[in-house]
């Protein structure tokens, strides 16, 4: 929500990427941007939460330890429930994804910060990573039998020329839907808030009304931020389960 809409300001202005430290390797632009800064902050905060929470582990947890344990239990429960007990080998990965997305969404709600999950480049890179990993896991665990995944069991063989392309496209659409869901939710919510913030100036006498709506929207956005992190993670779990158990 950096786009606190001034007169005629663009509600999409908040999504602009600005280089902080300009860097070029060859012709490739690898500048350290506001997006990268927020990612760094997210990682530092996650590390601080977990290290600080476990450093002085007590039987009766303090606030920090309680938060860290809640996050751990939540993701561990999700992994156990969706992949099964043998899925705990993926726990570090799933936990990292969850915390990264959650902190990205939440930090974006701080005024004048930046939401890196509102960029499809970021979410698609995450989703593509998950997709590549899931496919690799399926190949390692099942080898050539993985291709059986693309033919629904019990279907007549005559249908194969139609069913197999459909299943392959359906499989390939997973990272796309995964990334679009997160990016669209974040971007839509933040744009909506900036638009309503713009109304405060546009409507001179009843300016308090858009503010009320924005307060409500802000609450909604907090829910959406947590929910989308949850959805991203649970879909990762479900894809991993498909890869581990195959059918």
């Amino acid at each position, binding site marked *: 929500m950096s786009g606190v809409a001034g007169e005629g300001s663009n509600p999409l202005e908040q999504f602009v990427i600005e280089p902080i430290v300009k860097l070029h390797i060859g012709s490739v632009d690898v500048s350290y941007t506001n997006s990268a800064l927020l990612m760094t902050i997210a990682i530092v905060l996650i590390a601080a939460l977990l290290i600080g929470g476990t450093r002085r582990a007590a039987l009766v947890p303090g606030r920090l330890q309680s938060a860290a344990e809640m996050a751990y239990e939540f993701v561990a429960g999700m992994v156990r429930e969706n992949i099964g007990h043998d899925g705990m080998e993926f726990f570090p990965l799933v936990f990292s994804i969850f915390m990264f997305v959650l902190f990205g969404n939440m930090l974006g709600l701080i005024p004048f910060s930046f939401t890196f999950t509102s960029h499809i480049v970021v979410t698609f890179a995450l989703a593509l990573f998950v997709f590549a990993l899931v496919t690799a896991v399926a190949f390692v665990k099942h080898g050539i039998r993985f291709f059986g995944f693309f033919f629904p069991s019990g279907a007549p063989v005559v249908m194969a020329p139609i069913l197999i392309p459909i299943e392959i496209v*359906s499989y390939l659409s997973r990272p796309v839907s995964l990334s679009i869901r997160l990016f669209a939710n974040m971007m839509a919510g933040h744009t909506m808030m900036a638009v309503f913030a713009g109304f405060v100036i546009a409507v001179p006498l009843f300016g308090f009304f858009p503010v009320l709506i924005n307060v409500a929207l802000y609450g909604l956005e907090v829910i*959406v931020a947590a929910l989308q992190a949850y959805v991203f993670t649970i879909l990762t779990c479900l894809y991993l389960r498909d890869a581990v158990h195959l059918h």
Partner: protein
Amino acid sequence: MAGISFAFAGSPRLDRGVARHYGARRFGRGAGAYRAMSEGEPSDPLSRLGEKLDRARSRARAGGSGPAAEGGALGFGLRIGIELIAALIVGVVLGLTTDYFLGTRPWGLIAFFFIGSAAGVVNVFRAAQGLGRGGRPPGGKG
């Protein structure tokens, strides 16, 4: 949009002028509700803790009911829409790529457009199927 109704429900109380301990009153109400809820349980703190633990354990074993999947109708509608669109995007991109490399100008796009639409419907069907089972896979078979 529970948030909006909260904002309005909260505002008349603000100008009533009786403003006494908002926080404390709220907290008291919450604690009362909690006490009412756990009525009929043994008052011995240890056995109460034991019961709580049992409940937590059974919840962990049963696999939890899980949080309300995807937050209501709007979330579900958005999810269905995205499933449909995503497959279509993949289909069109595959079609265009095929055409670009094989030089089969319109046919690859046409074929993959229909395959993409079909895959989109399959995705939607799976997502809708999973609804009743508490957020089961959009891509899961089984």
